[in-house]
């Protein structure tokens, strides 16, 4: 399959969508969003397990939204793996081929190949109940891959694994996707997974796509305050203020120079924790904000300083620091690292 694209313009009555999205051929696209945002429903519509109440879905130029899942040549990995408990690993992997009437010799060959690719050759004779979580995961991946689908759908496949296995499977999945070059749609609520695996990320909330971008772009230029708040750990700091006459008034005497319209407008200013530095002395810059240190958390790799600015907490990530809780400090940043959002939360500059 070349140039897979799909397109919905759906207004799913319950989940309330209006999704518009095109996925490139061979691309690894991630749906990222908090639970209940509709990302799984979107995936299930692509799979054909749900029918969109409005809108159209295309694979290449073929409209598929009326087709049964069986006729779409999609493969799906479920959150709980959905391995058939009464079949052993081999039979599980073989099942999609069997259903499609692939002759036995070819089935054996392809099962063997896939098992090798996923390093589960030794488990082929075991029952799903006998193997470890990671192996179950691999089996379910194998079952999806074995019939060479044109679209590969993964619904939070790593969420049932422990932290170490998750890291391992993450790179494994990425490797597989690179090797097989299958268009992949991946659903997760874990932003690390999304950032590390996705070619592009579609951030979803409240049933709609908020931004589709490459991971770096998403991180650097989150288009709304919501995304800014959602991406990054700790997330971006947002300062509320009013913009007027070339200045930005944040609360409690913090004023920043700001070019722009003269109209008075409420805005928020976002700065990533790692773009802030903290200093006890007043620095020689206009781009500072004052606050009081609440806590200092040395986390090894960096130190997280939580600063109370006008009653709300601001996180600062610094390599080292000697500030103490209770100390009055200045937060310093470069103007190009700051993002300005208008009253509706849209990125302005």
């Amino acid at each position, binding site marked *: 399959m070349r140039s897979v694209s799909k397109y919905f313009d759906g207004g799913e009555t319950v989940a309330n969508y209006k999704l518009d999205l095109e996925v490139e051929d061979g691309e690894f696209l991630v749906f990222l969003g908090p639970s209940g945002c509709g990302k799984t429903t979107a995936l299930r519509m692509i799979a*054909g*397990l749900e029918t969109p109440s409005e809108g159209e879905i295309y694979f290449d130029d073929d409209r598929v939204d009326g087709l049964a*899942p*069986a006729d779409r040549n999609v493969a*799906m990995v*479920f959150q709980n793996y*959905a391995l058939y*408990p009464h079949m052993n690993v081999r039979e599980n992997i073989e*099942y999609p081929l069997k259903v499609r009437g692939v002759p036995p010799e070819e089935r054996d060959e392809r099962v063997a190949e896939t098992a090798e690719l996923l390093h589960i050759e030794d488990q082929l004779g075991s029952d799903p109940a006998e193997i470890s979580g990671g192996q179950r995961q691999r089996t379910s991946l194998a079952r999806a891959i074995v019939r060479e689908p044109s679209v590969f759908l993964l619904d939070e496949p790593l969420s049932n694994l422990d932290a170490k296995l998750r890291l391992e499977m993450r790179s494994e999945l990425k490797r597989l996707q690179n090797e097989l070059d299958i268009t992949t749609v991946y659903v997760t609520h874990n932003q690390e997974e999304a950032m590390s695996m996705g070619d592009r990320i579609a951030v979803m909330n409240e049933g709609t796509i908020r931004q589709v971008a490459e991971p770096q772009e998403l991180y650097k230029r989150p288009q709304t305050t919501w995304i800014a708040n959602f991406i990054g750990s700790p997330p971006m700091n947002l300062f509320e203020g009013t913009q007027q006459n070339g200045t930005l008034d944040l609360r409690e005497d913090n004023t920043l120079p700001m070019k722009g319209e003269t109209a008075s407008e409420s805005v928020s200013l976002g700065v990533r924790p790692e773009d802030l530095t903290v200093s006890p002395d007043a620095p020689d810059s206009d781009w500072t904000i004052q606050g009081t240190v609440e806590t200092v958390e040395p986390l090894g790799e960096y130190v997280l300083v939580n600063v109370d600015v006008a009653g709300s907490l601001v996180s600062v990530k610094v390599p080292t620091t000697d500030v103490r809780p209770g100390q009055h400090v200045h937060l310093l940043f470069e103007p190009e690292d700051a993002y300005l959002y208008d009253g509706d939360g849209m990125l302005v500059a």
Partner: protein
Amino acid sequence: MSLENDPDGWFDRDVDWEKLKAILVFMVPGLTLFAIFSVYPMVYSVGGSFWVWDAFDPMHFVGLDIWVETFQDEAVINWDNIKELEYPMGALPQNLIWMVIHVPLSTFLGLGLALLFSDLRGRRILRSMVFLAFTTPTVVIGLVLLFVYDPQAGIFNELLRTIGLEGQVRNWLQEPQLSMYALILGGVWVQTGFSMLLYSSALAGIDPSLLESARVDGASRYRRFRDIIWPLVKPVTAVVVIMGMIWVLRIFAIVYAAGGPSGGPNGVYSVLGLEVYQSAFSHPIEYGRAMVVALVELFIALPMAYYIARMD
């Protein structure tokens, strides 16, 4: 089923004597009644089947004589009629025929209804409607069947009249060669509710993502049933089949109500239970024969009970 010790032996640490006394205090009242009214009469029947009885009192030991006599009794097994495939064939073959027809029918109907209702709104009400007959007394079931098959007032015959089969209208429970099947149909009517209930709960226990996964894998509705649902409800099928067989084996009140203690004209739909009752409690009283027939029932049921016990 595990019969082993409590694993950490926590309760075993104190002396057995005290524990045993406590256990006894708990178990003795119930077990006494169990022993007197269930175990003892069973043993009594086993022993008594080797004796000649003077009405209710054992006279003298005769070994297997009564067993042999019983199996030669036409009311139990009528070899001549079996060869002709004509009713009455005797209570034992009739009971087995009942089983062979009744169990698959009620099992598959139950599964079918469970599948049909599984994702409908109001399925609980639908299920209760089908299950209701199972909660009514079996005597009432027998009388209801009598009513349903009545040539004048019965709705079954009315149905035949409506679809233009006036010629077939008859009292279905008085037709020697057919009434057995008419009764079996009634039994299926009752027991389908039970197997449906068990299958419904088994279906509800299947992880929906398995079926979705099979759909994505390309399995048709039929393949999904054959490859996923059927293997997964297999344990329940075993239970449903066995319970159905035991239910048929114990059939008594339905037949009694529909055809009296003789089991229809000439005993054409007599079953083992009726045979026991007749031998033991109507003249001439043949206690030994009653015990033999009842033991035959037990022997048929025992392997099933053993299977169920092993399943846990």
